[in-house]
């Protein structure tokens, strides 16, 4: 019983409560950086790291953090880890930190992190929180991966920077902001449609 619960916590972020597709939070960075797969995955992993570390630390100290000042403390912790990610990327993957630009430090104010920390990590055990963070982080990352895959392939005809489509068949629209909204909208519609169908089936079975 315990085990299936843990699995549910982890899977929750991947599909059922996917931060981007279902909760629709943390959208600005996800639309801005997803012009190619490298950036999309990089952003997703950077964000996942900050999320895991923040949820870990906050659930660890959840009994020591006074209720009245929990938000400033959350922000300090999240900001510290964001800065660490920024420094590490700057030092070891400069290409990625250049591509992500201002959206890297802006992870601090990404509402996914603040939302999960406030609603989950501050009330649950360390293990559950970390599982939640991994689920949410990967849920964020896979959506970024799909959006950036579509946008890079159709927008510039490349995959991880390797040319796969001839220049003539690319659609510049997808490389720009409206293309991001378009792909994101389609994905959301698809997810909602599938989950509605699944729910209806469940209802029939009953």
């Amino acid at each position, binding site marked *: 019983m315990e085990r299936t619960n843990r699995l549910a916590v982890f899977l929750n972020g991947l599909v059922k409560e996917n931060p981007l597709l279902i909760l629709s939070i943390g959208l600005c960075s996800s639309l801005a950086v997803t012009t190619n797969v490298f950036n999309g995955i990089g952003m997703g992993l950077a964000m996942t790291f900050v999320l895991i570390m923040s949820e870990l630390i906050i659930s660890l100290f959840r009994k*020591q*953090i*006074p209720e*009245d*000042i929990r938000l*400033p*403390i959350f922000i*300090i*912790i999240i*900001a*510290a880890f964001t*800065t*660490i990610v920024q*420094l*590490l990327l*700057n*030092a*070891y993957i*400069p290409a990625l930190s250049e591509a992500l630009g201002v959206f890297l430090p802006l992870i601090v104010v990404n509402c996914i992190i603040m939302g999960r920390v406030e609603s989950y990590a501050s009330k649950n055990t360390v293990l559950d929180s970390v599982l939640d963070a991994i689920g949410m982080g990967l849920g964020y990352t896979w959506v970024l991966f799909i959006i950036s895959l579509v946008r890079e392939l159709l927008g510039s005809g490349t995959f991880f920077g390797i040319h796969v489509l001839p220049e003539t068949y690319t659609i510049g629209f997808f490389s720009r902001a409206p293309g991001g909204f378009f792909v994101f909208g389609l994905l959301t519609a698809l997810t909602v449609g599938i989950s509605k169908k699944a729910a209806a089936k469940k209802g029939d079975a009953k």
Partner: protein
Amino acid sequence: MKQTLKLGFTLAAFAVISCFLLALVNSITAPVIEQHQIEKANAGMKTVFPDADSFEQVTDYKPSTDSAISIVKMYLAKKGGTVTGAVAQVSGPTYDHATILVGLDLNRTVTGMQFLELTDSPGFGLKANDPSYKTKGGTTFYDQLKGKNANDGFMVNKTFEAVSGATITSKGVANLLKQGTYSAGEYLAEKYGGAAASGDAPKAAEQPVLFSFEDAVKDICSTFDAYKGLTTSEDVAHDASYYPHKMVVDRESLIKDGSGKIVAAAVEVSGQTYSENGGSVIAVVDINRTILGARIVRIQDSPNLGMNTATPSFYNQFSSKSADQNLRPGTDYDVVSGASISSDCVADMVKVAAYEAAGIMEKHGGRTAPDGSAEYTLNEHYQEE
């Protein structure tokens, strides 16, 4: 009170721990990040000075001798700690504008040259920075400069090959190279035992000068001992509906000497140059119908091209010509290179202004016009109205 203090301390504790963590990470990553930045800056310079392993910026170098060209930065190129050359970043006019990096070793040999910025016409000037464009020597335009000695000078189609169809861009680049290599070479010669320059500092390009009516007259008169110090003294009323050769007479004026005797006349006319009503020119003519001089009051044209009709080497060609002779390109004056239409139009204006001025002098005791001189012809580049 106690509760507030407790909250404050808790917050402080979290802040301190976070700070400590950040400091730790920063101490590890800072040197790596710095190394990256230096490498990035050096990567550009390495392409023009491949033999160096580090670069150091210096500031006490000689500035450019040409006001239009500026030496933006200078770096010393070092190998194993000893200075082996210098890299100059030079910015200035080509057909439009360019910024280049040029590396120079201690023998004043160019180790490489690269464009950081080049704005020009695609298919022409931009070929200078096109890796697929090859000169007759089989190299790119910028690579052919590698190995040239700065003491041999940078002369288009003599010491290096111009981009075909873009001579002006190529000349502009040559000027940037001249300034950059001279300054870098001098810096090396002075401080690090580099080879000396074989010639003088590069001459500044002639700048166009525009005159007001009064200044033009003063400037022209000051070139002759007999007229020194004389200025315009009396305007003459002229017929506003009179347009000699479709030009507008803007102003006519008499020049008198100390005793009040009329010695010369100045006339300003406006006409078409490369653009419609694109310029105004003044000519001063003496009592013998000889042009004392011509100056440009106003000209709308391209910098480095038509604007150069306002340089002394162009307008001084009209001094001491007769107001009655035709002014023809090639025989009576040399056109500004790349701007023959502008040059011919300015010459036409000089001719009309001079003939009108000679006419005024005729009324004030000057020589009469020779027979038939009134039906003169111009180079006539204007379109029929």
